[in-house]
């Protein structure tokens, strides 16, 4: 009993200590950065800009157009391409995954094409996408699609395959047909796994988008970083990297939080 309580207390203080250590180490890093740049100029600003310069650049891109668009504009065009890619992957991937598990013959036939998409890294599709679609939204969306598609298919398939046989039998006993069983029994039971697939797809797609935008395009966050490289403006690259990272975290958090609303029955099941 006492040991348990001590352990619990230990965990409590551990968390406090961890936060303290974290704050100290991050502030030390920030101080080091400030010392190296604005204070003592160990490193040239051309190589590593000071935090103040990065913030200034951030404010500048927010208010003044950079390569045609302000920062929100670049963010929106990135989000648009990413959205198209992930949406298409979801609309095609979920049915494909479900039928993979539902009908083995369908899987045998379609699998070679799927493995091709699965095992060639999404970035290897960039040159092909450029060749097919030029510098359009479709190019980036295709790369996002290739990155997002496999995890959706795999997890949908897994979800359907793991549905308890007894549910399906019960539905059949009650006289439900194949389609009705699929729609009312199998899909809701497989939904958590499908959702996991979508979540992985969403973050994979975001990673792939940056790569695609670095190579081709005239707008977007990846393009902004690439422009920063062209202009030898490290501050712009920093602004881009920070924005991409923050958006990635934001998207993932939103998806995680939304699970409760999209799949209210999951809590009951687990």
């Amino acid at each position: 009993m006492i040991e348990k309580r001590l352990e619990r207390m230990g965990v409590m203080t551990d968390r406090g200590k961890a936060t303290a250590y974290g704050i100290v180490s991050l502030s030390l890093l920030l101080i080091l950065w400030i010392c190296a740049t604005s204070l003592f100029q160990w490193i040239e600003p051309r190589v590593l800009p000071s935090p103040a310069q990065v913030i200034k650049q951030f404010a500048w891109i927010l208010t003044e157009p950079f390569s045609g668009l302000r920062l929100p504009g670049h963010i929106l065009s990135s989000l648009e391409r990413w959205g198209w890619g992930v949406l298409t992957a979801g609309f095609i991937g979920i049915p494909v995954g479900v039928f993979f598990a539902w009908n083995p013959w369908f899987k045998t036939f379609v699998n070679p094409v799927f493995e091709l998409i699965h095992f060639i890294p999404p970035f290897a599709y960039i040159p092909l996408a450029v060749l097919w679609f030029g510098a359009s939204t479709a190019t980036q969306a295709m790369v996002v699609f290739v990155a997002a598609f496999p995890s959706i298919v795999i997890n949908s398939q897994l979800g359907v395959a793991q549905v308890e046989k007894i549910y399906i039998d019960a539905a059949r006993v009650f006289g439900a047909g194949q389609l009705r069983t699929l729609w009312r029994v199998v899909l809701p039971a497989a939904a958590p796994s499908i959702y996991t697939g979508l979540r992985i797809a969403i973050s994979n797609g975001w990673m792939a988008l940056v790569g695609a935008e670095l190579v081709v395009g005239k707008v977007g966050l990846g393009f902004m970083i690439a422009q920063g490289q062209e202009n030898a403006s490290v501050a712009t690259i920093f602004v881009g990297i920070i924005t991409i990272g923050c958006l990635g975290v934001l998207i993932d958090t939103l998806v995680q939080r939304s699970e409760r609303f999209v799949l209210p029955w999951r809590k009951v099941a687990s």
Partner: protein
Amino acid sequence: MGQSRTLQVAASLGAILAWIVIWAWLTRPGGPVPTLYFPAPDDVWAKFVRMWQRPYIGSTLPNHILASLYIVLTGWGLAALVGIPLGIAMAWWKRLKWIVFPTFQLIRPVPPLAWIPLTILWLGIGDSARISVVFIAALVPWLMNSMLAVYSIDRLLLDAAKTLGANDHQILTRVVCRTALPTLVAAARMALGSAWSTLVAAEILAATAGLGYVAVNASQLLDTDVLLVAMFMIGILGIGMTGLIGLTQNWLAPWSVLGARRD
């Protein structure tokens, strides 16, 4: 059991053949898909054989492959040298984790590719820029899974070692490092997958040899057959390397393979 497996393999082979036939039919001369957008299978094969012998943009195909492998294995290996010890140490000594982990969490959400422009600016377009991007891409899976490997160790083993009189150092080297081995093999696979796909993008952006470089040049020169050869090679090498790592599990950590086979 054996018979249904043979049937399955036969059906898969049949499906692959069927797709090749469909591909050949679609891209036949005067077919619905112009070869500018998608080459015929025999063209791709012919180009593959040709590239194997004659140089394409500077090197033969084997040399491009070696260039890619050199970068990816160097970056991956360096990431392992840093990631495994650091990951295990972070899981073993709380304080180290408290100090290092926040910084790590800060850079983790940034896609490894986003570092490419920065590394090019800092290091130029030489090998070191690509190696460092691959290093970043591989470091995250190495480190996270090394930590996970230590955390997933059965407490009973640690307690047993302690009861038998092992000191902290002995537990770390004799118990932790060994029981963590199967998870580390998984880490190696994940890190290599991440490294390989990042390398392709890095080569598309800045390289003078390598499969990604071949792909992007082929795309600019409208050599779709070369592009497909490069894409297939990228895919096959990726599968081959992760497969090899899977095989090493057999002699690195045979007990885990046996355990896996049982269920």
